[in-house]
């Protein structure tokens, strides 16, 4: 058998350029498959990790998907607000550990403005219970302080100390600006891959302050309150959009949810973020199905390409196999030779493909994060990825055997009196 390895090695070395192409083609197939599959899984992962560590989201009574959309994804607007006294009543509930009120509605150059309390930076978690981190500066302390998400800072080139003005309502073109009360950026958050990156955070009282002279969504004519004087007013908010709630004991989650939905003073609802995220994913998951289909097509095409490359390179070897058969190699010898080479070439190709994929994710993930907001992580291959890798190896290996059997049928007579 050692002698057979020596022959296999010399033969392979003799065909090293063709073999290198085969290995490269297998490596590219592997890279493509792993890449698409990784993007698919991470997309879902990114989505479902938009909020974590929050037990309930409370808002005015509406659809659970709608509440999730505006409170977490800043999409759409609330039809009704939650009164401040309801938030206070909720905070006083014995099962509740913390409440982070959220107030939405303003924007800054297309990015949503979220008014909240400093507790937000402590309690809001994303991903695998990761807390928000400051890339630069600190959470807001003064009245007109703002903390911007990473994407806001990167797109607009903001650093600590930047003066910004907010606009009423959302959208790029806003006529009514709160230009009289400029904010100062005091902090920039580190990237999270969630909607937080695209948010400008201010204090609840600041939100109240910039709307002091406003009524019914428009500035009151003739009323001007300069920024220096706003502190004289009562800046306690009258209402908020929604609230994130953490419980002392997660087991109480349904009891608190029921308490909220039967709250007598105004119609409220509480949703479990995980359940609502799954529901929402069910709606937009059609996108995932499209990616899954793409994965399958990519797999099919790369496997077919792999088989054809291996077959083509083996067709080239027909003469050589014929000679081997003619000088006494049995079918067993020929198959062993092909199987050995096929296995080594496929394994080498898949390994190089994995290295490509790892390097690709490591090198491209900052760019993907900033361009597409997609956070790719290096981690152990998932079950799906193992299956894909295994099918690549098996397909490549089987492909290398099939022509061997064909060669066996043709080659003996061929080798004795070859027809060229």
């Amino acid at each position, binding site marked *: 058998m050692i002698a057979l390895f020596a022959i296999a090695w*010399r033969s392979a070395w003799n065909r090293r350029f063709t073999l290198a192409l085969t290995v490269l083609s297998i490596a590219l197939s592997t890279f493509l498959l792993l890449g698409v599959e990784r993007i698919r899984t991470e997309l879902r992962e990114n989505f479902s990790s938009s909020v974590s560590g929050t037990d309930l989201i409370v808002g005015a009574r509406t659809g659970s998907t709608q509440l999730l959309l505006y409170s977490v994804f800043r999409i759409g607007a609330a039809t009704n607000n939650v009164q401040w006294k309801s938030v206070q009543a909720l905070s006083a509930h014995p099962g509740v550990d913390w409440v982070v009120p959220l107030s939405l509605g303003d924007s800054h150059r297309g990015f949503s403005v979220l008014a909240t309390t400093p507790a937000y930076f402590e309690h809001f978690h994303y991903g695998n219970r990761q807390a928000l981190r400051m890339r630069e500066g600190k959470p807001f302390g003064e009245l007109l302080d703002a903390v911007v998400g990473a994407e806001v800072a990167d797109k607009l080139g903001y650093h600590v100390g930047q003066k910004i003005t907010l606009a009423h309502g959302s959208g790029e073109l806003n006529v009514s600006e709160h230009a009289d009360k400029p904010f100062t950026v005091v902090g920039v958050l580190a990237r999270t891959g969630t909607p937080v990156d695209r948010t400008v955070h201010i204090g609840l009282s600041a939100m109240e302050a910039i709307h002091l002279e406003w009524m019914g969504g428009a500035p009151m004519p003739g009323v001007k309150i300069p920024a220096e004087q706003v502190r004289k007013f009562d800046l306690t908010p009258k209402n908020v959009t929604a609230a994130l709630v953490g419980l002392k004991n997660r087991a109480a989650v349904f009891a608190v949810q029921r308490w909220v939905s039967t709250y007598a003073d105004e119609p409220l609802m509480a949703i479990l973020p995980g359940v609502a995220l799954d529901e929402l994913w069910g709606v937009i998951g059609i996108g995932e199905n499209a990616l899954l289909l793409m994965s399958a097509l990519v797999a099919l095409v790369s496997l077919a390409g792999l088989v054809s490359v291996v077959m083509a390179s083996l067709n080239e070897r027909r003469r050589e196999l014929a000679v*081997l058969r003619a*000088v*006494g190699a049995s*079918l067993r010898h020929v198959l062993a030779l092909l199987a050995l080479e096929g296995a080594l070439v496929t394994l080498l190709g898949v390994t190089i493909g994995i290295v490509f994929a790892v390097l690709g994710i490591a090198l491209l993930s900052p760019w993907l994060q900033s361009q597409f907001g997609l956070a790719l992580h290096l981690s152990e291959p998932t079950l799906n990825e193992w299956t894909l890798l295994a099918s690549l190896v098996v397909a490549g290996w089987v492909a290398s055997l099939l022509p061997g059997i064909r060669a066996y049928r043709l080659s003996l007579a061929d080798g004795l*009196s070859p027809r060229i």
Partner: protein
Amino acid sequence: MTLVLSAESLRFAWPGARTPCIDIERLDISAGEAVFLHGPSGCGKSTLLSLLAGVLVADAGRITLLGHDWAALSGAARDRSRVAHVGYIFQQFNLLPYLSMLDNVLLPCRFSARRMERASRDGTARAQAEELLAQMGLDASLWQRQAMQLSVGQQQRVAAARALVGHPEIVIADEPTSALDEDRREAFLDVLLSACRTNHSALVFVSHDQRIAERFSRHVLLPEINRAASGEPA
């Protein structure tokens, strides 16, 4: 004299052909004999060689190699038996281009334990291969050279050494001189015939070239013994 190869009432037709291409009553090859098998193109020479070597199996009649009927063996067993007892010199030499001269000669020993054992009876298989190459007039400085770098004449002599290594009972040569010029042809025949004598191998030498017939002890004109000799493709 013991019989090495024996054919009896042999009939063979190519699939799809209505008339047989081989129809031979009897052909015996004895040990150590040098047989010149000749005839014009299309008289079935290559087909007969394939039948003798067990590559093709006869439709009727039997061919025995050292008393064993080819037809009674499975495909894998025929492969084993062929490499163990038959040295074959091909028209196209059939060297593996990426192996050295020496490794090409040793190929049958790699695939057959019997050839290996017989090659290393008086030393090592490598020593015997080197001795055969030397007998073929190939200088030791060439032995490690890859087959693809050899001239046609050198390749043919390597192919002959390969057929002879491990002393097979019979050497079958299929028009091995057709690619050689006259001087080289004579030199090649010299070494092949003397090597077969030294190794006590029977030789079946196929050619349509009458000029070399006198070098052989026995002549077989195929159209004379093949009753089916007609216009079938060779």
